[in-house]
């Protein structure tokens, strides 16, 4: 056996000592952290909840965007007639069709648009968000192919090109003959710079100034209370990946229907997951347990009550005369403000969020509310229909 020199022995001893010291320090730190959390949980559960919120949110994001295999046989989705939620009579059909493909595991999804007579901005947003969704959900190198046929109606192909859809999804253009007035729309684009949010808001404001029936004061109210709040929401909840910020804007003035359709969406984890992973999650779970299984109810709750899915939102104190917040600034009223402003201005509003949906009419009453077992939107979509001025009667797109 080879003899170990004294120098070598000293080296090994020192190394062992260093290792043991490190191990001791780490164990001590872990024990201390555990004790600190235990004390904090007992003495200040609200602060504890806020501290834990980022990790809870990360876990939810991981759960929603868990990678999956797209290896099922190709799926063909037939889209007939008008596709979108702009006309409420078609809303259920839109939800049914969306639930067929958002959650599917097919390696190829073919959209048969040959019989499609109109693609509304809400449908364009749905398809753009789907592209983003499959890119985020698919395992590396297994991203499913999304394909679409040409429509027999030239105006559909023309609109998909003009509104920025083909550019967004990287599809070859159909060279449609139908010309669409670029001044009547805000195109959908890949949002890559935070600084552009103001200019995008200004584009919608300008569209509303030209085509909506809203008076100057009403427009100011819509911009201040609705547009600003919604863009704040999507920019906060959108998950920036693949060099994009995770939110979309598209708007279109529809001459034939006399309204301006505005869609603002994000690829976030949705209402239910946000509420159940924010700082107020315990309070919400205890008080509104029904939202755990019903995303439609989660959306309704957010529009009715002063609750927030934000990571750093204060929690209501339980009082004998009803739960109350502490005085001072706080979050959680944004969606209530949006609903109040829309009903005051006579603007119908629809929200789709992962499995849930809520449609509110121009008077602020709930038209349709529900939860679908299959996902109907990859993220959250806010949709507004603003009445147009009424001086254009051409039967064009």
């Amino acid at each position, binding site marked *: 056996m080879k003899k170990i020199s004294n120098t070598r022995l000293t080296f090994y001893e020192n190394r062992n000592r260093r290792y043991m010291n490190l191990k001791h320090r780490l164990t001590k730190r872990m024990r201390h952290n555990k004790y600190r959390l235990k004390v904090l949980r007992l003495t200040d559960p609200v602060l504890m909840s806020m501290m834990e919120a980022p990790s809870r949110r990360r876990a939810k994001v991981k759960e929603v965007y868990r990678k999956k295999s797209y290896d099922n046989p190709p799926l063909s989705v037939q889209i007939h007639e008008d596709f979108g939620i702009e006309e409420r009579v078609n809303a259920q059909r839109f939800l049914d069709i969306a639930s067929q493909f958002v959650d599917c595991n097919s390696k190829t999804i073919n959209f048969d648009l040959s019989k499609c007579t109109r693609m509304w901005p809400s449908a364009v947003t749905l398809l753009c968000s789907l592209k983003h969704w499959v890119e985020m959900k698919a395992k590396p190198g297994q991203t499913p192919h999304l394909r679409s046929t040409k429509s027999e109606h030239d105006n559909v192909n023309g609109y998909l090109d003009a509104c920025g859809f083909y550019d967004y999804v990287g599809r070859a253009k159909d060279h449609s003959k139908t010309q669409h007035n670029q001044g009547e729309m805000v195109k959908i684009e890949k949002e890559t710079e*935070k*600084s552009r*949010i*103001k200019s995008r*808001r200004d584009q919608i404001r300008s569209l509303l100034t030209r085509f909506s029936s809203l008076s100057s*004061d009403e427009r*100011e*109210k819509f*911009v*201040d*209370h609705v547009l*600003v*709040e919604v*863009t*704040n929401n999507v*920019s*906060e909840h959108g998950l920036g990946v693949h060099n994009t910020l995770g939110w979309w804007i598209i708007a279109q003035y529809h001459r034939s229907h006399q309204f301006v359709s505005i869609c603002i969406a994000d690829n976030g984890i949705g209402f239910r997951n946000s509420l159940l992973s924010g700082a107020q999650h315990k309070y919400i779970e205890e008080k509104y347990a029904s939202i755990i299984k019903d995303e439609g109810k989660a959306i309704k709750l957010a529009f009715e009550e*002063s609750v927030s899915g934000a990571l750093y939102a204060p929690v209501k104190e339980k009082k004998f005369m009803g739960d*109350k*917040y*502490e*005085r*001072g*600034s*706080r*979050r959680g*009223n*944004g969606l209530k*403000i949006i609903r109040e402003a829309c009903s005051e201005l006579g603007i119908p509003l629809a929200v789709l969020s992962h499995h849930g949906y809520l449609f509110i009419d121009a008077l602020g009453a709930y038209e349709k509310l529900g939860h679908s077992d299959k996902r109907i939107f990859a993220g959250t979509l806010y949709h507004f229909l603003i009445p147009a001025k009424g001086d254009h009667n051409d039967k064009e797109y």
Partner: protein
Amino acid sequence: MIKNIDVGKDFFVDLVNRDENQGDGQFTAKQFREKYLSQMDNKEFWINPKNTIVLDFQNVEVLGPSFANEAFAYFTKYAKPEIIKKVIKIVNISKVKMSTIDVELNRSYDRK
């Protein structure tokens, strides 16, 4: 001492972001409060407020409720909305924007 501030020119025309997480994260309500209203952020100031600040909204284009809440309703933890409005005077402001501030002040004070 009365201090005059042209909010649109000295700060920004779009008052929309509550904090750095919203929108482009620039010109937030927190920054605004810390820049112009920091001396009001203590209990003692509101016991006998002497300094008044005049905020001119002439060049302000957009005022979001989140901004109003974080910049102005924040002070409802120290004083009533009427007192806050006396100390922070807002001039050249549209009806819509003033009602936004009023609603936020009252909502935060009522703890709803």
